[in-house]
């Protein structure tokens, strides 16, 4: 069974999913960060594929992308870094990034590499649902890799049902229309999380964008299956001091 499905079956609630950018702050930090996240109790990890022109990201994640590219990060190198990671990592791992680097790698090659290394799911925010359905669904399914879609409070009921039908891992709910790392009104977000909780979707829901600490994490978990933290964690990676300590401290502050 895919590790994502297994996790939701085993735990189901208060899932903590942490995002970080591959090759940042140092080129070879990718695995170190992953190991420390697993040790400190993160349930799932999203590794960002750096891109020069990511549209959905705020300044913090953009800068981590630029730094990673300067460090020499690429998708080929990322798969090389992840070659043997399943010897030590048992939690679900997702790759997230813009579509263009994946298309240049080749979608089929990319999914085969995901399968061979042990990546469980992929988030490509600028891959439209219709493109997935018409052109890529089969190769995702035959590789056994989940394609995870985003929804927002403005996503129509009809579209939400369609996304729920197409999804196989979980649904990524963006708490309000914004780029990553924006300050948000937690009250307004709660109303949306509650609405999602009442939707009776077949897939679990994780909330992302604007989740940054224990408070916002718990608010998201009240009505959904968990949340994703990205920008706040990238900031923690940049903080002074030992990177491993920073990771443990950050995760312990949430769960």
């Amino acid at each position, binding site marked *: 069974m895919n590790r994502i499905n297994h996790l939701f079956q085993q735990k189901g609630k208060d899932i903590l999913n942490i995002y970080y950018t591959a090759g940042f702050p140092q080129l070879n930090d990718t695995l170190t960060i992953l190991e420390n996240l697993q040790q400190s109790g993160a349930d799932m990890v999203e590794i960002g594929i750096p*891109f*020069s*022109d990511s*549209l*959905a990201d*705020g*300044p913090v994640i*953009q800068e981590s992308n*630029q730094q990673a*590219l300067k460090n020499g990060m*690429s*998708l*080929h190198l990322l798969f090389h870094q992840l070659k043997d990671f399943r010897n030590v990592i048992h939690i679900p791992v997702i790759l997230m990034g*813009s*579509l*263009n*680097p*994946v*298309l*240049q*790698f080749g979608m089929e090659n990319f999914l085969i590499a995901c399968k061979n290394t042990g990546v469980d799911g992929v988030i490509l*925010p*600028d*891959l*439209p649902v*219709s*493109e997935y359905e018409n052109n890529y669904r089969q190769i995702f399914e035959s590789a056994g890799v989940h394609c995870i*879609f*985003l*929804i*927002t409070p*403005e*996503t*129509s009921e009809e*579209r939400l049902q369609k996304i729920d039908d197409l999804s196989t891992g979980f649904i990524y709910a*963006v708490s309000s*229309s*914004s*780029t990553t790392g*924006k300050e948000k009104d937690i009250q307004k977000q709660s109303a949306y999380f509650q609405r999602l909780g009442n939707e009776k979707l077949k897939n679990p829901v994780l909330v992302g964008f604007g989740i940054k600490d224990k408070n916002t994490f718990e608010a998201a978990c009240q009505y959904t299956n968990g949340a994703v933290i990205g920008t706040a964690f990238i900031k923690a990676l940049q903080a002074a001091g030992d990177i491993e300590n920073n990771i443990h401290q950050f995760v312990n502050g949430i769960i």
Partner: protein
Amino acid sequence: MPLEFKLNPSAQRKNTIDFLKAGLYKVSPLGYYGEFGGAFIPEMLYPNVEELAEKYLDIIQDDGFQKEFQSLLHDYVGRPTPLYPAKRLSEKYKAHIYLKREDLNHTGAHKINNTVGQILLAKRLGKTRIIAETGAGQHGVATATVCALMNLPCVVYMGEVDMQRQAPNVARMRMLGAEVRPAMSGSKTLKDATNEAIRDWINNPSDTHYIIGSVVGPYPYPDMVARFQSVISEEMRKQLIEKEGNELPDYVIACVGGGSNAAGSFYHFLNNDEVKLIAVEAAGEGVASGHTAATTVVGKIGIIHGSKTMLMQTEDGQIEEAYSISAGLDYPGVGPLHAHLFKTGRAQYLNATDEEALQAALELTRLEGIIPALESAHALAKLKDIAFKPDDVVVVCLSGRGDKDMETYIKRLEI
């Protein structure tokens, strides 16, 4: 050495039923020109782009809209722009050369055709705030102008590097009441300004309309902007009947960055295979120099700003910086219509270096008393490379005037 143009077999077919041919170049219901186009956008933009895609055709084909649009183009922009028979240029290149004088539009370039159309559309969509990106500042000025006219708040994103290079246009936008926000990310030029405008739209989805300045971006922008710019070729056809007794020229030549003036110049000739369409990209310091904006030469298919098209990128799919002496052409992609015209061979894509453009600008100035924009000078620079017959009718789109480029001309031409 002069080039002879051969059209590919699909463009040579004659007697094809017109509506079939229209299908070759018309955008599909899903926003594709052949394999190019589409709307590769994050879910956060979906409601906005979907609303636009659903409504834009009904709005712009509405009689009331057309009446208001046409009267603003006539009374405010100053259309129709002249189709000027360039006598001395014609003598030099031994053909009937006409200049479509988009430089005589209000604000000095073709950009305002699109911003007038989009601001009327934004009002009908009930939007109360306008954002735009700009490279050289011409589209930013054209957007700030229509926002002043319609009393709507306007934010223009401009690369920090471009703000320094094009300071007079920054001042014009500010005088017009627009807020100019520096794009500090990436290379701090046009592609980054476009990224910032898209990010602004993601964060302000309900009240804001994004006026894209070229035939780029997610569907329906490429088609919508091409339609607003198509007034250029619509007028060419009428004016050519008056001047030559035939509405079809032998050649239409226009420069391409994202490609809006070329799309407008080609639009009403796309189905007339006998009209040779020549697009001229900026070669910068040369297509092999690493400092170029000739996307069809050095680019590959990929996704930029929500559109599948030709773009300049690394092996790893990172978008590369484009270079040209002209700040209006240094975009690392082309609109999806151009990618399609390139791929099918319906248009020929040539390129001109910085130096060729500078010399062409000086030549037009001295022969005809017209100082062209550096962008338009790229189109003029190819007159010397084409083997015209003496009876050939050639229309060059003079997309903008050269006032904004005086600093570069003074420095590079040692005037």
